[in-house]
């Protein structure tokens, strides 16, 4: 593949966009769009050196630490090729660049950063990874969140060590720039398991939602990417991703996690939406007969989904018949449960200015703004940096 010889007229680059408001609107009514999945790039682990205790510096030497890496490869670059900045070769390496390429262009008021290293939770050395998580959170706050009110941070943690994760959540839980705890979907044990409850206890203590984001399946200490082993191709691997979401969702419900933590809000990010009706419908079907095994469950399973769970749009399912998508969204009460996510700058980015054109205006408003405000609460509007 040779670099294309692109000649672009200077004046042709201007896009028809509204001029960005100078300051953030404080009132929800003025918000236009909240993006729950913006991947700011970490140029390399070495960036974290200033935030990492000296004892860990040898890990960064000699070309960096050993990190288990994914082996299923996208047929393209996996990124939005048109958003890459010449200076650093990254599409989201610079907060101002992302303001320009994403926030302004698509009229997004708030972007929730989901970063680029959630896979730390399936790496082998949980001690080192816990240190990396803390350093990464500090880096995110300093470089992205504190200087820019439009960005909100997610607390990354080494999920394979729940105690360390809980400590990290308590350390940062009251920071006005942090709005959630972030877990990778790849895991050894489903997320409803009691093993993880210290994480949720800490999150609930600080009123933080927990989000699980797809990624790193089949890598490191994670299980195979499906319940029947390893797929052969990226096409399968990527399509299989939503199964990890379903498995976590079923686990969270059947383990009674939402009985133990009734105020816990859980977001499923980048798994699409339309699988939720299956989880609701199958578990509701099983519940009358199988609740003998799970007497701690006090409600029909679908009620936990409707009250405690949120699902991000991206990658939004695209049936030929638009009515079908709206029907599935109605089953899962998308007006309460669905959040917008772009996944910028990854290849499967959804364009908010086009992908939802056939949605009724009130549903779109719920998905674009109000559901996220309800899930994240007032933190989302806290002012902690410049607009």
């Amino acid at each position, binding site marked *: 593949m040779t670099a294309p010889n692109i000649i672009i007229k200077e004046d042709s680059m201007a896009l028809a966009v509204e001029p960005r408001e100078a300051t953030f609107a404080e009132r929800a009514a003025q918000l236009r769009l909240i993006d729950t999945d913006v991947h700011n790039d970490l140029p390399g682990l070495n960036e974290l050196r200033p935030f990492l205790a000296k004892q860990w510096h040898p890990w960064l030497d000699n070309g960096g630490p050993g990190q288990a890496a994914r082996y299923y490869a996208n047929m393209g670059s996996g990124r939005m090729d048109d958003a890459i900045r010449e200076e650093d070769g990254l599409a989201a390496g610079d907060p101002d660049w992302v303001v320009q390429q994403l926030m302004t262009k698509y009229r997004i008021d708030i972007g929730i950063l989901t970063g680029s290293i959630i896979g730390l939770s399936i790496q082998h050395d949980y001690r080192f990874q816990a240190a990396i998580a803390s350093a990464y959170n500090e880096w995110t706050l300093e470089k992205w969140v504190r200087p820019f009110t439009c960005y909100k941070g997610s607390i990354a943690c080494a999920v394979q060590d729940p105690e360390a994760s809980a400590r990290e959540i308590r350390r940062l839980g009251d920071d006005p720039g942090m709005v959630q705890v972030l877990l990778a979907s790849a895991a050894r044990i489903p997320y409803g398991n009691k093993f993880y409850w210290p994480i949720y206890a800490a999150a609930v203590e600080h009123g933080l939602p927990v989000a699980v984001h797809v990624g790193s399946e089949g890598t490191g200490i994670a299980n195979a990417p499906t319940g*029947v082993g390893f797929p052969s191709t990226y*096409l399968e691997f990527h399509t299989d991703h939503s199964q990890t979401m379903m498995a*976590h969702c079923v686990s969270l419900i059947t383990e009674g996690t939402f009985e133990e933590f009734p105020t816990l809000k859980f977001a499923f990010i980048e798994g699409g939406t339309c699988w939720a009706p299956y989880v609701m419908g199958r578990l509701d079907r099983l519940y009358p007969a199988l609740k003998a095994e799970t007497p701690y469950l006090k409600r029909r399973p679908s009620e936990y989904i409707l009250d405690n769970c949120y699902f991000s749009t991206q990658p939004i399912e695209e049936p030929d018949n638009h009515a079908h998508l709206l029907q599935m969204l109605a089953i899962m009460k998308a007006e309460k449960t669905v959040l917008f996510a772009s996944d910028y700058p990854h290849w499967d980015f959804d364009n908010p200015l086009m992908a939802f054109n056939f949605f009724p205006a009130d549903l779109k408003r719920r998905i674009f703004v109000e559901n996220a405000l309800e899930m994240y609460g007032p933190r989302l509007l806290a002012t902690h940096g410049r607009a």
Partner: protein
Amino acid sequence: MGATITREQAAERDGSAAGLRAIDVDVHPQITDWGTVAPYAPEGLRHRMTRRGGPPMARHGFKMVGPRFGSAPAPPDSAGKAGHPASDPAWVKGQYLDRRGVDVAILTGDLTSLGVQPNADVAAAIAQAVNDWVLDRWVRPFDCFKGSILVAPQDAAQAVAEIDRLGDDPGMVQVLLGSATESPLGRRQYHPIYEACARHDLPLALHIGGEGAGMAPPSTAVGHPTTYFEWYGSLPQVYMAHIMSMITEGVFEKFPTLKVVLHEGGVFWLPHIMWRFDKNWKAQRSETPWVKEPPSAYILRHFYSTTYPLEASPAPAHLGQVLEMIEADRTLLFSSNYPNWELGDPFAMIDDVPEGLRPRVLVENALAVYGERLLRPHS
């Protein structure tokens, strides 16, 4: 495509199809005494079947808690010990099929974890013995029972030999694989099995149940569940993985007549994976250039779903909508999962299926999938 027949054509042939009331594609005969199976095993491995409790079988620990069988007919009580409601074919015919108006029942056995047993030779021997046992005790004496050729995919050569041995038996109507496997079913070590299915014009049935046992990976992509509830709730996910694998690996390009029936998985997840798969394929098609159509086209053409257990819908209208999305007028088959009716009566399960679809689901779709074999007298 093999011979498929309509209710009318079937009626012309033998006069019996016109009045068909229901075809049940999922009835589980229970082996209660392996001593009765052992004589059917190949001689060299017969001794492995006669040990107490049957042949060595890896099992997972997921088991329902609470009363079983729901509204399934209560088994006869002999000497204070209740029998199993699916151990005696005559009794099942009389108490279930005849009373509930089921004309044909396809037997799917109770060995869903066969495909993840480590010893491939013992697994193949078990398949062979059980197949002959089913034929001898259930199928040959009763026209209403049709058999499935159970195979162990660990050694595709032996699976193919078994399909060839029984593929033309008038009592056998499909090949049966447990959906618990070491690898997704599109991977090419399994293709000889599909070639044999196609050669004998036999649909392939997949049945959940062995997930997480033996050599199987944890039954979800994120590890082992804790409870039966969680395990069973998650099982459709393995169907999703198999569907994606079989399409991506070109199984239906190689074997365009192959039909796959998915048992006990429900249907509400199908729209999600059809749409998600299509979207990804449009982007990534160059990775597998033999996948020439949108994946949803293969799904709708080659996969069939069954009714036990259909998802509980918050409103009946929702079920109708989902059934339209998956073209249930062709792709949905009635199944009872007899005698495991804990989740509800199988006929009540289809109460909310739109009236117009009911005859398709109960009779016609199964006739279209299985063809004339289903009505051929064989006893």
